């Protein structure tokens, strides 16, 4: 990224570094030499001083191109915006081009896979649609062996921290898997950008009120996914999976919660908060949400899906008791039973064994 900045500068383009995080790495610091760096902004939070990107200062300086390290970073509370990617969008809105970087594990829809692979639940995530907005995505590839060598030589982290890293996240199979994920993700990003005739970006047409029947889009029978939101904590994983599948298929994606009472306030506080959190999360991933009311959850969900021309319902596998069907079907069984005219995808909760 810094090399490209140098090249742009050599071409006479006005480049600045808006945020730079060298982690004390000599090579990296060396590479930044000769580039204009905008000083960070200092913020005090709970008695400690934090340094963040000074978006206002960059806007005042208004370069043609701004280099921003660590796209997925979460700003300290009290900052103007919660996430660095939101700061980047402000720069873009003001006509400044941005070069930025992130690791594959920071992509929202891969969060569960990354956890399964590495045992690490990554908190700093970037929604997929934000990455999709980028004009270009480039893979920075490095074979794990090379990275491990760099770690052992103390290039990446100081020795003590390096040893810890080698024992945890930086294991060869973990790194290889992350690398494969990154390669496949970049291939997808490239594909989406270079196939204009095939509409592989998800369309953003809203749920059409209460109209009936599948509406045809560009002649093709387009996929329409419906995610069933519940209070189950694994719902976040279900939402991510649904979003990811929809993105791959170029499908529209919706999410609903079925309330058996009337109004969300009828729910116990904890449940209501969970549902609101899930709905909010879905909306952050640009999924249109609805709250439905009905006594019978499966019935309400399936008839809504039918009215809206949904082709595929995404549900979470019900955990816990699995009594013979004669004692009454569980929710998944009911939905599968009722939605025999459409596709139902039962998403596996990912567990680390």
């Amino acid at each position, binding site marked *: 990224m810094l090399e490209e900045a140098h090249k742009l500068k050599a071409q006479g383009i006005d480049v600045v570094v808006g945020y730079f995080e060298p982690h004390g790495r000599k090579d990296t610091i060396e590479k930044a030499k000769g580039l204009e760096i905008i000083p960070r902004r200092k913020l005090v939070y709970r008695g400690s001083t934090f340094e963040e990107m000074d978006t206002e200062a960059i806007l005042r300086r208004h370069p043609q191109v701004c280099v921003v390290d660590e796209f997925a970073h979460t700003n300290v509370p009290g900052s103007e915006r919660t996430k660095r990617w939101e700061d980047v969008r402000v720069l873009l809105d003001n006509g400044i081009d941005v070069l930025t970087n992130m690791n594959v594990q920071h992509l929202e829809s891969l969060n569960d*896979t990354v956890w*399964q*692979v590495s*045992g690490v639940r990554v908190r700093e995530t970037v929604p997929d649609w934000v990455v999709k907005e980028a004009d*270009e995505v*480039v*893979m*920075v*590839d*490095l*074979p794990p*062996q*090379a990275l491990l060598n760099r770690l052992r030589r103390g290039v990446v982290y100081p020795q003590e921290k390096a040893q810890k890293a080698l024992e945890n996240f930086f294991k*060869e*199979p*973990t790194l*290889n*898997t992350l*690398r*494969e*994920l990154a*390669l*496949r993700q*970049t*291939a*997808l990003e*490239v*594909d989406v*950008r*270079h*196939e*204009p005739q095939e509409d*592989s970006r998800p369309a953003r047409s809203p749920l059409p009120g209460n109209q009936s029947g599948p509406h045809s889009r560009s002649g093709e029978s387009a996929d329409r996914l419906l995610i069933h939101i519940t209070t189950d904590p694994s719902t976040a994983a279900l939402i991510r*999976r649904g979003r990811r599948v929809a993105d*791959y*298929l*170029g499908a529209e994606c919706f999410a609903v919660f079925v309330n058996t009472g009337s109004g969300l306030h009828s729910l116990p506080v904890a449940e209501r908060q969970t549902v609101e959190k899930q709905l909010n999360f879905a909306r952050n991933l640009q999924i249109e949400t609805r709250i439905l009311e009905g006594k019978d959850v499966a019935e309400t969900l399936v008839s809504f899906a039918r009215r809206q021309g949904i082709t*595929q319902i995404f549900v979470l*596998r019900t955990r816990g008791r*699995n009594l*013979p*069907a*004669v004692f009454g079907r569980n929710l*998944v*069984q009911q939905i*599968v039973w009722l939605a*025999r*005219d*459409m*596709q*139902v*995808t*039962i*998403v*596996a909760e*990912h*567990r*680390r*064994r």
Partner: protein
Amino acid sequence: MSETHLNRPDPEQLLRQLQAAERYERRGSVKVFLGYTSRVGKSVRMLDEARRRKERGEDVVVGATQPVLSPDVEALLAKLEVIPLKFIDGIPVMDVEAILKRHPRVCVVDGLAHNNPPSSRHARRWEDVEELLEAGISILTSVNLQYIDEYKEKVEQITGRHVVESVPLSFLRSADEIEVVDIPTDMALERAGEMPAETADLQDSETAAQQQKLGKLREMALLLAADIVDHQLEMYMLRHGVEQTWGTQERILVCIKAGVNARQMLESGRRNADRFRGELYVVHVREGDTSPQEEAGLNESLAHARSLGAHVEILEEQDWVAAVLRFAREHRITQIFIHHSRKETWLERLFGSGVDRLIRSAEGIDIRVFPQ
């Protein structure tokens, strides 16, 4: 990650492994820099690594360079020991004898796909490289997607240009390391205009169309690298007796039952596998007798599956749910496609249908149930 140990390998397999390990120890290691087109910066990246290694005290030489050198490449070469190419019938050839005599620890070989003239030691440069590796010299080399045997046809369809030289995919798959050199397509186009390169004719045509072509090549190169990484990972898991329980590539398994029209589900399976750039598997479990009519329908479905390029298998087992799950685990399946059950028998009413059982026991795998 789970540490489930696989079955013990048989003695013969162990012996083969030992022999492979021995050979592996003597042999030099090879690192391949893969680019989706020329001028993406493979040579610079490779030579820069050679420079860094030399600075760290490794014994590195350059055994072969490209015919045309960019200023960046020249600058790096100035810092390295170069064994000059020799000329046979006026064609530049890597001097294998000289390199063997010099016997460095690491040798840089640019242009892996290069063809040697008839009277050379080997017909192809990658065969020269094999000899150096056997002699215990490690190799840094670079190749462009269009020269990989198994990809040549596909690339030719995109670029419309035929190339003679080639390197087998197996060379890349057995490489110790592979590194993708990825740059944005517009930059690749720009660079193609900078120098008298093989892609220079690109700039005359319409840029957007060229970008799209390059995009396709780029995607192919990235996915090829992903497949190689996947292969390496599988080998690692095998060597360490570790079972992989997750999939980074989507692998779809379509289950076909007798007496059901599977056309729609098969086509959806194909489309999904394509969209996900994944693999498609189709299985049928033989449970008992089928009517001639069912048999005919089934054969038609299986033929259709084969025509769609799926890996098709017929399993014989009493319990189809167990058979499907075992197959799915063995093939690291991430999604199972299956039809809704048509009607319930009283047994199913009591214990749940097969689909129910499958849903219940398919931990870690998505189940997609289709209308009949």
